Protein backbone atom coordinates (compact mmCIF):
# COMPACT_ATOMS: atom_id res chain seq x y z
CA UNK A 1 0.00 0.00 0.00
CA UNK A 2 1.26 3.47 -0.77
CA UNK A 3 -0.38 6.61 0.46
CA UNK A 4 -0.59 7.92 -3.10
CA UNK A 5 -2.94 5.03 -3.99
CA UNK A 6 -5.33 5.93 -1.20
CA UNK A 7 -6.41 9.15 -2.87
CA UNK A 8 -8.48 7.30 -5.43
CA UNK A 9 -10.65 5.92 -2.62
CA UNK A 10 -11.86 9.44 -1.84
CA UNK A 11 -14.15 10.59 -4.66
CA UNK A 12 -14.33 14.19 -3.44
CA UNK A 13 -10.60 14.70 -4.01
CA UNK A 14 -11.30 14.73 -7.75
CA UNK A 15 -13.42 17.86 -7.62
CA UNK A 16 -12.38 21.37 -8.51
CA UNK A 17 -12.86 24.33 -6.16
CA UNK A 18 -13.03 27.73 -7.84
CA UNK A 19 -11.42 26.14 -10.86
CA UNK A 20 -8.49 24.60 -8.95
CA UNK A 21 -7.97 21.03 -7.72
CA UNK A 22 -9.19 20.70 -4.14
CA UNK A 23 -6.45 20.70 -1.51
CA UNK A 24 -8.42 19.64 1.55
CA UNK A 25 -6.57 20.76 4.67
CA UNK A 26 -9.49 21.06 7.07
CA UNK A 27 -9.34 17.55 8.47
CA UNK A 28 -9.47 18.64 12.09
CA UNK A 29 -12.99 19.95 11.35
CA UNK A 30 -14.13 16.85 9.50
CA UNK A 31 -12.44 14.24 7.35
CA UNK A 32 -13.47 13.21 3.86
CA UNK A 33 -15.09 9.81 3.34
CA UNK A 34 -13.73 6.88 1.35
CA UNK A 35 -15.89 5.07 -1.21
CA UNK A 36 -16.14 2.13 1.20
CA UNK A 37 -18.03 4.28 3.72
CA UNK A 38 -20.24 5.94 1.11
CA UNK A 39 -21.10 2.52 -0.40
CA UNK A 40 -21.96 1.15 3.03
CA UNK A 41 -24.55 3.91 3.45
CA UNK A 42 -26.09 3.13 0.07
CA UNK A 43 -25.95 -0.61 0.70
CA UNK A 44 -27.71 -0.23 4.02
CA UNK A 45 -30.58 1.77 2.61
CA UNK A 46 -30.87 -0.33 -0.55
CA UNK A 47 -30.66 -3.77 1.04
CA UNK A 48 -31.07 -3.83 4.82
CA UNK A 49 -33.01 -0.82 6.06
CA UNK A 50 -35.25 -1.60 9.04
CA UNK A 51 -35.55 -0.37 12.61
CA UNK A 52 -33.33 -2.00 15.21
CA UNK A 53 -34.20 -3.95 18.35
CA UNK A 54 -37.82 -4.25 17.24
CA UNK A 55 -39.72 -6.99 15.57
CA UNK A 56 -38.54 -10.38 14.45
CA UNK A 57 -38.51 -9.94 10.72
CA UNK A 58 -35.40 -10.62 8.73
CA UNK A 59 -34.50 -7.03 7.88
CA UNK A 60 -34.79 -5.91 11.51
CA UNK A 61 -32.56 -8.79 12.51
CA UNK A 62 -30.03 -7.76 9.87
CA UNK A 63 -29.96 -4.07 10.75
CA UNK A 64 -29.70 -4.85 14.47
CA UNK A 65 -26.85 -7.22 13.79
CA UNK A 66 -25.06 -4.65 11.64
CA UNK A 67 -25.23 -1.91 14.28
CA UNK A 68 -24.14 -4.25 17.05
CA UNK A 69 -21.24 -5.52 14.93
CA UNK A 70 -19.98 -1.96 14.62
CA UNK A 71 -20.38 -1.45 18.35
CA UNK A 72 -18.15 -4.48 18.88
CA UNK A 73 -15.70 -3.04 16.34
CA UNK A 74 -15.59 0.28 18.25
CA UNK A 75 -15.01 -1.62 21.49
CA UNK A 76 -12.08 -3.44 19.85
CA UNK A 77 -10.77 -0.12 18.50
CA UNK A 78 -10.74 1.21 22.09
CA UNK A 79 -9.50 -2.11 23.52
CA UNK A 80 -12.60 -2.07 25.70
CA UNK A 81 -13.49 -5.55 26.88
CA UNK A 82 -17.27 -5.03 26.67
CA UNK A 83 -19.18 -3.66 23.67
CA UNK A 84 -22.01 -2.57 25.99
CA UNK A 85 -19.71 0.13 27.40
CA UNK A 86 -19.82 1.81 23.98
CA UNK A 87 -22.75 4.22 23.72
CA UNK A 88 -23.63 5.66 20.31
CA UNK A 89 -24.41 9.39 20.28
CA UNK A 90 -24.62 11.98 17.53
CA UNK A 91 -21.10 13.30 18.13
CA UNK A 92 -18.55 14.01 20.86
CA UNK A 93 -20.51 17.10 21.89
CA UNK A 94 -23.52 14.96 22.64
CA UNK A 95 -21.31 12.43 24.43
CA UNK A 96 -20.02 15.15 26.76
CA UNK A 97 -23.53 16.51 27.32
CA UNK A 98 -24.67 12.99 28.13
CA UNK A 99 -22.07 12.78 30.91
CA UNK A 100 -23.01 16.24 32.20
CA UNK A 101 -26.69 15.28 32.39
CA UNK A 102 -26.68 11.64 33.32
CA UNK A 103 -23.64 11.61 35.61
CA UNK A 104 -23.10 15.25 36.60
CA UNK A 105 -26.69 16.02 37.53
CA UNK A 106 -26.94 12.91 39.64
CA UNK A 107 -23.63 12.94 41.45
CA UNK A 108 -22.46 16.57 41.71
CA UNK A 109 -23.68 18.95 44.39
CA UNK A 110 -23.18 22.53 45.57
CA UNK A 111 -19.54 23.31 46.25
CA UNK A 112 -18.12 20.48 44.15
CA UNK A 113 -15.49 21.41 41.59
CA UNK A 114 -14.84 20.53 37.97
CA UNK A 115 -11.33 21.09 36.61
CA UNK A 116 -10.74 21.64 32.92
CA UNK A 117 -8.16 23.49 30.82
CA UNK A 118 -7.99 26.70 28.83
CA UNK A 119 -7.38 24.78 25.59
CA UNK A 120 -10.80 23.14 25.42
CA UNK A 121 -13.22 23.25 22.53
CA UNK A 122 -16.48 24.99 23.41
CA UNK A 123 -18.08 21.53 23.55
CA UNK A 124 -16.02 20.73 26.64
CA UNK A 125 -16.72 24.08 28.32
CA UNK A 126 -20.37 24.96 27.76
CA UNK A 127 -21.98 21.71 29.04
CA UNK A 128 -20.08 22.18 32.31
CA UNK A 129 -21.05 25.85 32.55
CA UNK A 130 -24.70 24.84 32.21
CA UNK A 131 -24.24 22.18 34.88
CA UNK A 132 -22.33 24.58 37.15
CA UNK A 133 -25.14 27.09 36.97
CA UNK A 134 -27.77 24.49 37.70
CA UNK A 135 -26.00 22.69 40.54
CA UNK A 136 -23.84 25.41 42.08
CA UNK A 137 -20.67 23.62 41.02
CA UNK A 138 -17.42 25.53 40.58
CA UNK A 139 -15.40 25.41 37.36
CA UNK A 140 -11.64 25.80 37.39
CA UNK A 141 -9.47 26.04 34.27
CA UNK A 142 -5.80 25.09 34.17
CA UNK A 143 -3.96 27.86 32.25
CA UNK A 144 -2.31 27.16 28.91
CA UNK A 145 1.41 27.96 28.68
CA UNK A 146 2.57 30.42 25.98
CA UNK A 147 3.79 27.50 23.83
CA UNK A 148 0.33 25.94 23.93
CA UNK A 149 1.11 23.14 26.37
CA UNK A 150 -0.09 22.36 29.88
CA UNK A 151 2.19 22.55 32.91
CA UNK A 152 1.54 19.34 34.86
CA UNK A 153 2.40 21.09 38.13
CA UNK A 154 -0.39 23.57 37.47
CA UNK A 155 -2.74 20.70 36.70
CA UNK A 156 -1.86 19.13 40.04
CA UNK A 157 -2.29 22.45 41.79
CA UNK A 158 -5.81 22.86 40.37
CA UNK A 159 -7.02 19.68 42.06
CA UNK A 160 -8.62 19.99 45.50
CA UNK A 161 -10.50 17.56 47.73
CA UNK A 162 -13.67 19.01 46.19
CA UNK A 163 -12.66 18.12 42.62
CA UNK A 164 -15.17 15.59 41.34
CA UNK A 165 -14.33 15.71 37.63
CA UNK A 166 -11.28 16.47 35.52
CA UNK A 167 -12.20 16.89 31.86
CA UNK A 168 -9.63 17.67 29.17
CA UNK A 169 -8.84 17.30 25.50
CA UNK A 170 -6.26 14.73 24.44
CA UNK A 171 -5.18 16.91 21.49
CA UNK A 172 -5.91 20.61 21.01
CA UNK A 173 -7.96 21.21 17.86
CA UNK A 174 -6.75 24.79 17.59
CA UNK A 175 -3.02 24.42 18.27
CA UNK A 176 -2.32 20.75 17.69
CA UNK A 177 -0.87 20.25 21.16
CA UNK A 178 -0.74 16.57 22.06
CA UNK A 179 -1.33 16.23 25.78
CA UNK A 180 0.27 13.52 27.94
CA UNK A 181 -3.09 11.77 28.39
CA UNK A 182 -2.00 9.01 30.69
CA UNK A 183 -0.20 11.37 33.08
CA UNK A 184 -3.15 13.78 33.11
CA UNK A 185 -5.60 10.97 33.83
CA UNK A 186 -3.28 9.85 36.64
CA UNK A 187 -3.30 13.32 38.20
CA UNK A 188 -7.11 13.45 38.12
CA UNK A 189 -7.51 9.94 39.50
CA UNK A 190 -5.03 10.48 42.36
CA UNK A 191 -7.07 13.53 43.33
CA UNK A 192 -10.10 11.26 43.57
CA UNK A 193 -11.85 12.81 40.56
CA UNK A 194 -13.61 11.10 37.69
CA UNK A 195 -11.77 11.81 34.41
CA UNK A 196 -13.23 12.54 30.98
CA UNK A 197 -10.99 12.58 27.90
CA UNK A 198 -12.19 14.46 24.82
CA UNK A 199 -10.53 12.24 22.20
CA UNK A 200 -11.98 13.93 19.11
CA UNK A 201 -8.60 14.96 17.72
CA UNK A 202 -6.82 11.89 19.04
CA UNK A 203 -8.99 9.02 17.83
CA UNK A 204 -8.48 9.63 14.07
CA UNK A 205 -4.67 9.49 14.43
CA UNK A 206 -3.54 7.57 17.49
CA UNK A 207 -4.52 4.28 19.08
CA UNK A 208 -6.59 4.33 22.26
CA UNK A 209 -6.40 1.76 25.01
CA UNK A 210 -9.05 2.71 27.54
CA UNK A 211 -7.64 0.27 30.03
CA UNK A 212 -4.17 1.76 30.07
CA UNK A 213 -5.50 5.34 29.93
CA UNK A 214 -7.47 4.64 33.09
CA UNK A 215 -10.05 7.33 32.33
CA UNK A 216 -13.73 7.07 33.24
CA UNK A 217 -15.20 8.63 30.11
CA UNK A 218 -13.88 8.92 26.55
CA UNK A 219 -15.73 10.89 23.85
CA UNK A 220 -15.13 11.19 20.11
CA UNK A 221 -16.89 11.65 16.75
CA UNK A 222 -16.95 9.30 13.75
CA UNK A 223 -16.93 12.07 11.16
CA UNK A 224 -13.35 13.14 11.91
CA UNK A 225 -12.09 9.60 11.28
CA UNK A 226 -13.49 8.79 7.82
CA UNK A 227 -16.94 7.94 9.21
CA UNK A 228 -20.27 9.59 8.47
CA UNK A 229 -21.56 12.67 10.27
CA UNK A 230 -24.19 12.19 12.96
CA UNK A 231 -22.54 9.34 14.83
CA UNK A 232 -20.39 9.72 17.92
CA UNK A 233 -19.17 7.57 20.76
CA UNK A 234 -19.17 7.74 24.50
CA UNK A 235 -17.17 5.04 26.19
CA UNK A 236 -17.48 4.85 29.97
CA UNK A 237 -16.55 2.46 32.73
CA UNK A 238 -19.33 -0.07 33.15
CA UNK A 239 -20.03 0.60 36.83
CA UNK A 240 -20.46 4.31 36.12
CA UNK A 241 -22.85 3.65 33.25
CA UNK A 242 -24.82 1.36 35.55
CA UNK A 243 -25.11 4.02 38.25
CA UNK A 244 -25.87 6.94 35.94
CA UNK A 245 -29.37 8.18 35.20
CA UNK A 246 -30.66 7.84 31.65
CA UNK A 247 -30.00 10.78 29.29
CA UNK A 248 -33.10 11.03 27.11
CA UNK A 249 -36.35 9.20 27.77
CA UNK A 250 -38.28 7.26 25.19
CA UNK A 251 -38.40 3.98 23.37
CA UNK A 252 -35.48 1.53 23.36
CA UNK A 253 -34.10 2.82 26.67
CA UNK A 254 -36.68 1.08 28.87
CA UNK A 255 -37.29 -2.51 29.86
CA UNK A 256 -40.75 -2.03 31.31
CA UNK A 257 -43.13 0.92 31.25
CA UNK A 258 -46.28 1.44 33.26
CA UNK A 259 -48.09 4.74 33.51
CA UNK A 260 -46.61 5.26 36.98
CA UNK A 261 -43.02 4.30 36.43
CA UNK A 262 -40.50 2.83 34.03
CA UNK A 263 -37.52 0.57 34.40
CA UNK A 264 -34.38 1.21 32.43
CA UNK A 265 -33.05 -1.06 29.75
CA UNK A 266 -29.66 -2.73 29.99
CA UNK A 267 -26.44 -1.06 28.82
CA UNK A 268 -25.89 0.58 26.45
CA UNK A 269 -29.54 0.92 25.41
CA UNK A 270 -30.41 2.85 28.58
CA UNK A 271 -28.61 5.77 26.91
CA UNK A 272 -29.93 5.31 23.38
CA UNK A 273 -33.52 6.50 23.41
CA UNK A 274 -35.53 6.44 20.21
CA UNK A 275 -34.59 5.15 16.78
CA UNK A 276 -30.84 5.62 16.60
CA UNK A 277 -28.77 6.78 13.65
CA UNK A 278 -28.69 3.27 12.23
CA UNK A 279 -27.27 3.88 8.76
CA UNK A 280 -24.42 6.10 9.94
CA UNK A 281 -23.53 3.69 12.73
CA UNK A 282 -23.38 0.88 10.15
CA UNK A 283 -21.19 2.94 7.81
CA UNK A 284 -18.80 3.78 10.64
CA UNK A 285 -17.71 0.14 10.48
CA UNK A 286 -15.87 0.37 7.13
CA UNK A 287 -14.23 3.60 8.32
CA UNK A 288 -12.70 1.72 11.25
CA UNK A 289 -11.70 -1.13 8.93
CA UNK A 290 -10.03 1.35 6.59
CA UNK A 291 -8.00 2.93 9.40
CA UNK A 292 -7.13 -0.50 10.73
CA UNK A 293 -5.92 -1.76 7.35
CA UNK A 294 -3.43 1.09 7.01
CA UNK A 295 -2.60 1.31 10.69
CA UNK A 296 -2.89 4.42 12.84
CA UNK A 297 0.86 4.54 13.39
CA UNK A 298 1.69 4.84 9.71
CA UNK A 299 -1.17 7.29 9.19
CA UNK A 300 0.24 9.46 11.95
CA UNK A 301 3.79 9.31 10.56
CA UNK A 302 2.51 10.28 7.13
CA UNK A 303 0.43 13.24 8.22
CA UNK A 304 2.89 14.51 10.79
CA UNK A 305 5.57 14.42 8.12
CA UNK A 306 3.40 16.65 5.95
CA UNK A 307 2.70 18.93 8.91
CA UNK A 308 6.43 19.32 9.57
CA UNK A 309 6.96 20.33 5.93
CA UNK A 310 3.99 22.69 6.10
CA UNK A 311 5.53 24.38 9.13
CA UNK A 312 8.79 24.72 7.24
CA UNK A 313 7.05 26.35 4.25
CA UNK A 314 5.08 28.74 6.46
CA UNK A 315 7.94 29.37 8.89
CA UNK A 316 10.25 30.42 6.04
CA UNK A 317 8.18 33.61 5.75
CA UNK A 318 9.27 36.11 8.39
CA UNK A 319 5.74 37.55 8.59
CA UNK A 320 4.26 34.18 9.58
CA UNK A 321 3.91 33.16 13.22
CA UNK A 322 3.43 29.47 13.97
CA UNK A 323 1.41 28.63 17.05
CA UNK A 324 1.57 25.63 19.34
CA UNK A 325 4.44 23.62 20.77
CA UNK A 326 7.89 23.91 19.18
CA UNK A 327 8.70 20.34 20.17
CA UNK A 328 7.49 18.10 17.30
CA UNK A 329 6.82 15.22 19.68
CA UNK A 330 4.16 17.36 21.35
CA UNK A 331 2.38 18.25 18.09
CA UNK A 332 -0.32 16.61 15.97
CA UNK A 333 -0.94 17.09 12.24
CA UNK A 334 -2.51 20.48 12.96
CA UNK A 335 -0.61 23.60 11.83
CA UNK A 336 -1.98 26.83 13.24
CA UNK A 337 -0.55 30.13 12.02
CA UNK A 338 -1.05 33.85 11.62
CA UNK A 339 0.29 36.35 9.09
CA UNK A 340 1.33 39.74 10.43
CA UNK A 341 -1.32 42.38 9.89
CA UNK A 342 -3.80 40.02 8.25
CA UNK A 343 -7.01 38.67 9.66
CA UNK A 344 -7.34 34.87 9.31
CA UNK A 345 -10.58 35.30 7.36
CA UNK A 346 -8.83 37.22 4.63
CA UNK A 347 -6.12 34.57 4.54
CA UNK A 348 -8.78 31.86 4.26
CA UNK A 349 -10.47 33.56 1.32
CA UNK A 350 -7.26 33.78 -0.70
CA UNK A 351 -6.46 30.15 0.11
CA UNK A 352 -9.95 29.16 -1.06
CA UNK A 353 -9.32 30.86 -4.40
CA UNK A 354 -6.36 28.49 -4.77
CA UNK A 355 -8.60 25.52 -3.96
CA UNK A 356 -7.04 25.17 -0.51
CA UNK A 357 -9.57 24.47 2.24
CA UNK A 358 -8.28 25.59 5.62
CA UNK A 359 -10.15 26.58 8.75
CA UNK A 360 -9.92 30.19 9.88
CA UNK A 361 -11.23 31.86 12.99
CA UNK A 362 -11.48 30.93 16.64
CA UNK A 363 -11.86 27.14 16.10
CA UNK A 364 -14.62 27.06 18.74
CA UNK A 365 -11.95 27.96 21.30
CA UNK A 366 -12.72 31.58 22.13
CA UNK A 367 -11.20 31.45 25.65
CA UNK A 368 -7.96 30.04 24.21
CA UNK A 369 -7.82 32.71 21.49
CA UNK A 370 -8.31 35.38 24.12
CA UNK A 371 -5.47 33.91 26.15
CA UNK A 372 -3.18 33.89 23.09
CA UNK A 373 -4.29 37.45 22.33
CA UNK A 374 -5.40 36.73 18.82
CA UNK A 375 -8.90 36.93 17.39
CA UNK A 376 -8.27 33.68 15.60
CA UNK A 377 -5.78 31.73 13.54
CA UNK A 378 -5.54 30.04 10.18
CA UNK A 379 -5.27 26.28 10.52
CA UNK A 380 -4.14 23.62 8.08
CA UNK A 381 -4.72 20.06 9.30
CA UNK A 382 -3.53 16.92 7.54
CA UNK A 383 -4.84 13.39 7.13
CA UNK A 384 -3.93 10.18 5.37
CA UNK A 385 -4.97 11.24 1.84
CA UNK A 386 -3.01 14.50 1.82
CA UNK A 387 0.24 14.64 -0.13
CA UNK A 388 2.93 16.88 -1.58
CA UNK A 389 0.45 18.40 -4.05
CA UNK A 390 -1.51 19.83 -1.11
CA UNK A 391 1.67 21.39 0.26
CA UNK A 392 2.42 22.90 -3.15
CA UNK A 393 -1.09 24.35 -3.32
CA UNK A 394 -0.68 25.74 0.18
CA UNK A 395 2.65 27.33 -0.75
CA UNK A 396 1.05 28.95 -3.83
CA UNK A 397 -1.82 30.25 -1.73
CA UNK A 398 0.60 31.65 0.85
CA UNK A 399 2.63 33.43 -1.82
CA UNK A 400 -0.48 34.88 -3.40
CA UNK A 401 -1.72 36.12 0.00
CA UNK A 402 1.56 37.83 0.85
CA UNK A 403 1.87 39.43 -2.57
CA UNK A 404 -1.69 40.63 -2.84
CA UNK A 405 -1.82 42.18 0.62
CA UNK A 406 1.77 43.44 0.19
CA UNK A 407 2.82 41.92 3.50
CA UNK A 408 6.30 43.16 4.23
CA UNK A 409 8.77 40.51 5.36
CA UNK A 410 9.59 42.90 8.19
CA UNK A 411 5.98 43.27 9.29
CA UNK A 412 5.68 42.92 13.03
CA UNK A 413 3.39 40.17 14.17
CA UNK A 414 0.41 41.46 16.10
Amino acid at each position, binding site marked *: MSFADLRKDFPILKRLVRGKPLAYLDNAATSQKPRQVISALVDFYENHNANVHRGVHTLSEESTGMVEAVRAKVAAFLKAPKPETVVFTRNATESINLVAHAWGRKFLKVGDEIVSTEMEHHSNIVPWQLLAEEKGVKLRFVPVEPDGTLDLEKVRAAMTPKTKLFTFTAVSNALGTVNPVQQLVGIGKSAGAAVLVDACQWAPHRPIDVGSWGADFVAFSAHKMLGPTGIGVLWAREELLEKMDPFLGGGDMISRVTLDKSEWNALPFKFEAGTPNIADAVAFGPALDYLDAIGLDSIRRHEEGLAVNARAILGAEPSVTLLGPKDPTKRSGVVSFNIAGLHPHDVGTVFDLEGVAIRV*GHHCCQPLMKKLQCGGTARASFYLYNDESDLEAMARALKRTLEF*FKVSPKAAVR
Partner: protein
Amino acid sequence: MEGDSELQDLYREVLMDYYGSSTRKGTLDPADLRAHGINPVCGDELEITARREGGHIAKLRYTGHGCVISQASAAMMAEALEGASVERARELIKAFKAMMLENAPVASLPEELEQLSALEGVRRFPLRVKCATLGWNTILQGLERPSGEEPR
Protein backbone atom coordinates in the same frame (compact mmCIF):
# COMPACT_ATOMS: atom_id res chain seq x y z
CA MET B 1 -0.41 41.36 -6.63
CA GLU B 2 -0.41 43.18 -9.92
CA GLY B 3 -2.99 41.66 -12.17
CA ASP B 4 -4.66 39.49 -9.55
CA SER B 5 -8.04 40.57 -10.81
CA GLU B 6 -9.92 37.88 -8.94
CA LEU B 7 -8.69 39.22 -5.61
CA GLN B 8 -8.87 42.84 -6.72
CA ASP B 9 -12.56 42.36 -7.39
CA LEU B 10 -13.14 41.30 -3.77
CA TYR B 11 -10.58 43.49 -2.04
CA ARG B 12 -10.96 46.72 -4.00
CA GLU B 13 -8.47 49.43 -3.32
CA VAL B 14 -11.06 51.64 -1.66
CA LEU B 15 -11.74 48.85 0.85
CA MET B 16 -8.06 48.56 1.68
CA ASP B 17 -7.98 52.33 2.26
CA TYR B 18 -10.95 52.26 4.62
CA TYR B 19 -9.52 49.20 6.36
CA GLY B 20 -6.37 51.14 7.14
CA SER B 21 -8.21 54.33 8.09
CA SER B 22 -8.60 55.41 11.71
CA THR B 23 -10.86 58.40 11.01
CA ARG B 24 -13.89 57.17 12.95
CA LYS B 25 -12.23 54.63 15.17
CA GLY B 26 -12.71 55.12 18.88
CA THR B 27 -15.27 55.21 21.64
CA LEU B 28 -17.55 58.10 22.56
CA ASP B 29 -18.09 58.82 26.23
CA PRO B 30 -20.72 59.90 27.00
CA ALA B 31 -22.80 58.24 24.34
CA ASP B 32 -26.53 57.68 24.10
CA LEU B 33 -26.19 54.72 21.78
CA ARG B 34 -23.98 51.75 22.50
CA ALA B 35 -24.14 48.57 20.54
CA HIS B 36 -21.97 45.49 20.54
CA GLY B 37 -21.93 43.21 17.54
CA ILE B 38 -20.33 39.83 17.16
CA ASN B 39 -20.04 37.41 14.28
CA PRO B 40 -20.17 34.04 16.02
CA VAL B 41 -18.76 32.28 12.96
CA CYS B 42 -15.39 34.00 13.15
CA GLY B 43 -15.44 35.91 16.43
CA ASP B 44 -15.22 39.35 14.80
CA GLU B 45 -16.37 42.03 17.20
CA LEU B 46 -17.52 45.63 16.90
CA GLU B 47 -18.38 48.19 19.53
CA ILE B 48 -20.31 51.18 18.22
CA THR B 49 -20.97 54.34 20.21
CA ALA B 50 -22.96 57.34 18.97
CA ARG B 51 -24.46 60.59 20.15
CA ARG B 52 -27.84 61.67 18.81
CA GLU B 53 -28.79 65.34 18.73
CA GLY B 54 -32.10 66.71 17.45
CA GLY B 55 -33.01 63.55 15.58
CA HIS B 56 -29.57 63.27 13.94
CA ILE B 57 -26.60 61.02 14.54
CA ALA B 58 -24.18 63.77 15.51
CA LYS B 59 -21.18 61.55 16.13
CA LEU B 60 -20.46 57.90 15.48
CA ARG B 61 -17.38 55.86 16.42
CA TYR B 62 -16.48 52.18 16.26
CA THR B 63 -13.78 49.90 17.63
CA GLY B 64 -13.24 46.22 17.23
CA HIS B 65 -11.30 43.62 15.39
CA GLY B 66 -12.02 41.73 12.25
CA CYS B 67 -11.19 41.08 8.64
CA VAL B 68 -10.74 43.63 5.85
CA ILE B 69 -14.37 43.27 4.80
CA SER B 70 -15.92 43.77 8.25
CA GLN B 71 -13.63 46.62 9.26
CA ALA B 72 -13.81 48.49 5.95
CA SER B 73 -17.57 48.14 5.87
CA ALA B 74 -17.83 49.48 9.43
CA ALA B 75 -15.63 52.45 8.52
CA MET B 76 -17.80 53.24 5.50
CA MET B 77 -20.93 52.79 7.60
CA ALA B 78 -19.62 55.28 10.17
CA GLU B 79 -18.81 57.80 7.46
CA ALA B 80 -22.19 57.44 5.73
CA LEU B 81 -24.33 57.57 8.86
CA GLU B 82 -22.55 60.28 10.84
CA GLY B 83 -24.55 63.45 10.32
CA ALA B 84 -27.58 61.68 8.87
CA SER B 85 -31.00 61.89 10.49
CA VAL B 86 -31.97 58.77 12.39
CA GLU B 87 -34.74 58.21 9.91
CA ARG B 88 -32.38 58.50 6.95
CA ALA B 89 -29.89 56.22 8.68
CA ARG B 90 -32.53 53.50 8.84
CA GLU B 91 -33.21 53.90 5.11
CA LEU B 92 -29.51 53.68 4.32
CA ILE B 93 -29.06 50.56 6.42
CA LYS B 94 -32.00 48.98 4.63
CA ALA B 95 -30.66 49.91 1.21
CA PHE B 96 -27.20 48.52 2.00
CA LYS B 97 -28.57 45.26 3.36
CA ALA B 98 -30.79 44.91 0.30
CA MET B 99 -27.70 45.11 -1.90
CA MET B 100 -25.76 42.55 0.13
CA LEU B 101 -28.53 40.13 1.03
CA GLU B 102 -31.15 40.44 -1.68
CA ASN B 103 -28.82 41.13 -4.59
CA ALA B 104 -30.41 44.55 -5.18
CA PRO B 105 -28.58 46.31 -8.05
CA VAL B 106 -25.58 48.37 -7.00
CA ALA B 107 -26.96 51.25 -9.09
CA SER B 108 -29.94 51.45 -6.72
CA LEU B 109 -27.72 52.46 -3.77
CA PRO B 110 -28.53 55.97 -2.46
CA GLU B 111 -25.97 58.65 -3.21
CA GLU B 112 -24.59 58.62 0.36
CA LEU B 113 -23.69 54.96 -0.08
CA GLU B 114 -21.96 55.31 -3.44
CA GLN B 115 -18.62 54.04 -2.13
CA LEU B 116 -20.33 50.94 -0.71
CA SER B 117 -20.52 49.58 -4.25
CA ALA B 118 -16.94 48.48 -3.51
CA LEU B 119 -18.43 45.62 -1.50
CA GLU B 120 -20.21 44.26 -4.54
CA GLY B 121 -17.59 41.53 -5.08
CA VAL B 122 -18.27 40.14 -1.58
CA ARG B 123 -21.61 38.80 -2.82
CA ARG B 124 -19.74 36.02 -4.63
CA PHE B 125 -18.49 34.81 -1.24
CA PRO B 126 -21.67 34.00 0.71
CA LEU B 127 -19.81 33.27 3.94
CA ARG B 128 -18.24 36.73 3.84
CA VAL B 129 -21.52 38.63 3.46
CA LYS B 130 -21.92 38.45 7.24
CA CYS B 131 -18.58 40.24 7.59
CA ALA B 132 -19.87 43.08 5.40
CA THR B 133 -23.15 43.45 7.28
CA LEU B 134 -21.74 43.19 10.83
CA GLY B 135 -21.37 46.96 11.38
CA TRP B 136 -24.75 47.71 9.84
CA ASN B 137 -26.61 45.13 11.91
CA THR B 138 -24.84 46.36 15.03
CA ILE B 139 -25.85 50.01 14.58
CA LEU B 140 -29.38 48.92 13.66
CA GLN B 141 -29.63 46.99 16.90
CA GLY B 142 -28.48 50.15 18.75
CA LEU B 143 -31.03 52.33 16.96
CA GLU B 144 -33.84 49.94 17.75
CA ARG B 145 -33.29 50.17 21.47
CA PRO B 146 -34.96 53.05 23.35
CA SER B 147 -32.77 56.12 23.54
CA GLY B 148 -30.59 56.63 26.60
CA GLU B 149 -27.40 55.26 28.03
CA GLU B 150 -27.27 51.56 27.29
CA PRO B 151 -26.01 49.10 29.84
CA ARG B 152 -22.61 47.82 28.87
